[in-house]
C-alpha cells in the first residue's frame, strides 16, 4: 500500500467515526440512545439493517467463496425476503406497540422474567463471544497480507468503534453506517470496473461468464433434495427462512436497527428494502469472486493465496519441494491457459464439435491444476501440521493488492474496515443495551432516572467492546474455539426463534412450559449437531420446531394457563 492508500483508509474510517461522535454528542435520552433518532426514515433503517449483516468477512470470504465454489452460496439468502415480510407483519408492530428497547423485553412481558433472561442470556453468550471473532477474523487476514501488526490492527478497529458507539449509541451507529455503506458500494463498483478492464482484450463479460460457467462457477441454484448438500434451493428457502426469521426478528443487533425510526411505516419499508436488495447484493459479491477466478485463468495466481503461511512453511520445511510444486503449478497453469485460448477461438469459429473437444481439454487441465493445488496443501501440512489449508479468504485481497491502482487499493481496504466497523458497532450497541435493559434495569430495584440507564448502557457497551478486543488479542491461541463460536450461532438461533414464535402465535402457552421446552430443545440440537452431517441451516428449523412442539406438549401436561396469565402482560 502507498501513502495515498493509507490516507484513504485512515481518512475515511477516522473521518466517519469523528463525524459520528460530533453529531451525536450529548445524547442522554434513552429513547434516542437505544433506538436512534425518532425522525429516522426507511432509507437509514434499510441501510443500517444491511450494514449490520455485511461484516468484513462478507467482503473477504464471499468473493473467495465465489472463486472456489461458485455462486451456490446465494441460496442461503432465499429465505430472507419471506422472513422479512413475516417480521414486518408480525414482529415489528408488536415491538413498536409495546415500546420495548430490546426484543427480549417482549418475552418478559409475554411470559415471565426467567424466559426473558433466557432469551437475553443466549444472545449475550452467542453474540458476546462472536464479537471477538468478528474483530479477529478480518484483522488476521489483513495482518498476514499487509504485514501489519495483528495486535495494533485489532486495537485500531476495536477502539475506533467503541468511541463512537459509546458516545452516540444507536443514533451514532445508524449515522455512521450510511457513510460506511457508501464506501462499501463505491469500493465494490470500483473492483468490478477494474476487473472487467483488466480482463484480456477481446474477452467480454459474456465470454468471461461462459468460461466461469464451464468450470462450474456459475451454478447459482441447486434443485437437489440431498440433505447433505451444503447449499440447495430447499435448504436456503426453508432453513434460510428460519435462520433469517431468528436473526432479523429476534437478534437484538438487528432488532435495534429497525424498532426506532419515525413510524411503523418507515421500519417496514426499511425491512422491505433489504428484502428486495439483499439477494442481488450477495449475488454481485459472489459474481465478483467468479470473475476474479476468470481473471486468474489469464494471470498466474499463487499456488496458495495465503503467501505468509506458504513462505513460512517453505522456510521451515523442504524449500526445494515447495519450489518444485510452484513450478509444476506454473507449468500446469500455462498449459491450461493455452487450452482456454484454443477454446475461445473455437467458440468464435462456431464449430460445435471443435468447441466441445477444446472445452473438454480445458476441463481436464483445470482438474490437473486443482490437483497440483491439492499437492501444495499436502506439502504445507507436512511442513506445518497446524497450518490452515483453506486460503479462499485471501483470494480477493491478494487480487486487490496486486492488480488495483493505488488509491483504489486504499478504497478496497477501507471497504473491509467499513464493513467491520458497521457490523461491530451494531453488535456492541446491542450487547450494551441488552445488558443494561434486560439484566441491569430488570434486576436493579432502586428507582433511578432514565439518564442513569443511559450511563449504564455506555459503560456496558465499552465493557463489551474491551472484552471483544481482549478476546481477539488472545484468539490467535485458540483457533478451535473460534470455530466453535461460529458454530454457536447456527445452534442457538432456532431455539430462540421458537421462543418468539410461541410468544407471538401460541397465546395459551405460558412461561414455564416454553422455558423448559427451550432448554430441552437446545440440548437436543447440540446432540444432533454432533451426531448428524446435514447442512447447518437445517438446525434452525429443527431447534425452532423442537421448542414449539415441546412447548405445546408441556403446556398440555401442565394444564391450561391461569386466568391471570391469560391477560397477557406478566
Amino acid at each position, binding site marked *: 500500500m502507498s501513502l495515498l492508500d493509507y490516507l484513504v483508509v485512515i481518512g475515511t474510517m477516522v473521518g466517519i467515526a469523528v463525524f459520528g461522535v460530533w453529531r451525536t454528542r450529548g445524547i442522554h435520552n434513552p429513547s434516542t440512545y437505544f433506538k436512534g433518532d425518532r425522525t429516522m426514515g426507511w432509507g437509514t433503517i434499510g441501510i443500517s439493517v444491511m450494514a449490520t449483516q455485511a461484516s468484513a468477512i462478507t467482503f473477504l470470504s464471499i468473493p473467495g467463496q465465489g472463486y472456489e465454489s461458485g455462486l451456490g452460496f446465494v441460496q442461503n439468502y432465499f429465505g430472507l*425476503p419471506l422472513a422479512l*415480510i413475516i417480521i414486518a*407483519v408480525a414482529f415489528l408492530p408488536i415491538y413498536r406497540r409495546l415500546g420495548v428497547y430490546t426484543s427480549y423485553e417482549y418475552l418478559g412481558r409475554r411470559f415471565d422474567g426467567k424466559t426473558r433472561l433466557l432469551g437475553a442470556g443466549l444472545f449475550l453468550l452467542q453474540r458476546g463471544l462472536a464479537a471477538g471473532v468478528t474483530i479477529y477474523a478480518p484483522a488476521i487476514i489483513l495482518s498476514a497480507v499487509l504485514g501489519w501488526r495483528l495486535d495494533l490492527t485489532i486495537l485500531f478497529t476495536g477502539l475506533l468503534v467503541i468511541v463512537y458507539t459509546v458516545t452516540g449509541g444507536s443514533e451514532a451507529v445508524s449515522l455512521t453506517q450510511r457513510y460506511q455503506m457508501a464506501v462499501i458500494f463505491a469500493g465494490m463498483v470500483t473492483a468490478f470496473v477494474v476487473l472487467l478492464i483488466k480482463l484480456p482484450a477481446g474477452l467480454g463479460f459474456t465470454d468471461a461468464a461462459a468460461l466461469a460457467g464451464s468450470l462450474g462457477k456459475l451454478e447459482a*441454484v441447486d434443485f437437489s433434495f440431498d440433505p447433505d448438500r451444503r447449499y440447495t434451493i430447499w435448504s436456503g428457502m426453508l432453513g434460510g427462512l428460519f435462520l433469517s426469521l431468528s436473526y432479523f426478528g429476534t437478534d437484538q443487533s438487528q432488532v435495534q436497527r429497525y424498532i426506532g425510526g419515525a413510524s411503523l*411505516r418507515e421500519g417496514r419499508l426499511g425491512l*422491505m428494502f433489504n*428484502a428486495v436488495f439483499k439477494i442481488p447484493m450477495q449475488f454481485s459479491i459472489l459474481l465478483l469472486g467468479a470473475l476474479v477466478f476468470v481473471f486468474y485463468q489469464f494471470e498466474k495466481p499463487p499456488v496458495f493465496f495465503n503467501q505468509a503461511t506458504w513462505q513460512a512453511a517453505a522456510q521451515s520445511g523442504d524449500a526445494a519441494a515447495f519450489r518444485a510444486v510452484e513450478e509444476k503449478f506454473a507449468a500446469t497453469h500455462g498449459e491450461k491457459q493455452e487450452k482456454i485460448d484454443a477454446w475461445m477461438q473455437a467458440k468464435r469459429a462456431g464449430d460445435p464439435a471443435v468447441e466441445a473437444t477444446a472445452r473438454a481439454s480445458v476441463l481436464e487441465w483445470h482438474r490437473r491444476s486443482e490437483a497440483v493445488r491439492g499437492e501444495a496443501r499436502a506439502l504445507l501440512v507436512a511442513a506445518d501440521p497446524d497450518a490452515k489449508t483453506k486460503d479462499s479468504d485471501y483470494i480477493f485481497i491478494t487480487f486487490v493488492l496486486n492488480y488495483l491502482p493505488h488509491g483504489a487499493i486504499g478504497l478496497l481496504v477501507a471497504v473491509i474496515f467499513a464493513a467491520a466497523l458497521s457490523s461491530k458497532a451494531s453488535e456492541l450497541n446491542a450487547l450494551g443495551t441488552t445488558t443494561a435493559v434486560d439484566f441491569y434495569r430488570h434486576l436493579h430495584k432502586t428507582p433511578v432516572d432514565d439518564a442513569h440507564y443511559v450511563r449504564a448502557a455506555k459503560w456496558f457497551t465499552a465493557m463489551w467492546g474491551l472484552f471483544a478486543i481482549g478476546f481477539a488479542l488472545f484468539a490467535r491461541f485458540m483457533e478451535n474455539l473460534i470455530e466453535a463460536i461460529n458454530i454457536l450461532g447456527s445452534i442457538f438461533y432456532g431455539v430462540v426463534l421458537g421462543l418468539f414464535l410461541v410468544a407471538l402465535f401460541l397465546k395459551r402457552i405460558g412461561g414455564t412450559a416454553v422455558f423448559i421446552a427451550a432448554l430441552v430443545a437446545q440440548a437436543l440440537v447440540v446432540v444432533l449437531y454432533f451426531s448428524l452431517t446435514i447442512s447447518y441451516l437445517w438446525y434452525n428449523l429443527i431447534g425452532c420446531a423442537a421448542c414449539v412442539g415441546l412447548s405445546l406438549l408441556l403446556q398440555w401436561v401442565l394444564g391450561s394457563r391461569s386466568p391471570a396469565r391469560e*391477560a397477557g402482560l406478566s
Partner: protein
Amino acid sequence: MKRAPLDAPNDNPADGVPPGDDEVTGLPGFRTWRRVYLFVFGCFVLAVVFLALFSRHFA
C-alpha cells in the same frame, strides 16, 4: 384493573400515531401493505428465476 390483550390496537397517544394510520404505505401504486409484500415476493421469485436461467445459460 383489566389489562389490555397483548395484540390489541394501541391507542396510546404518546405513540403519536392515530389508530389505523400504520396501514398507510404512502407509496404511489401501493395503497396497501399486502400489495407491497406481494411486490417484494414477486421480486424474490424473479430473482430466483433469473439465477436459475443464468446458471442454465452459462453452466
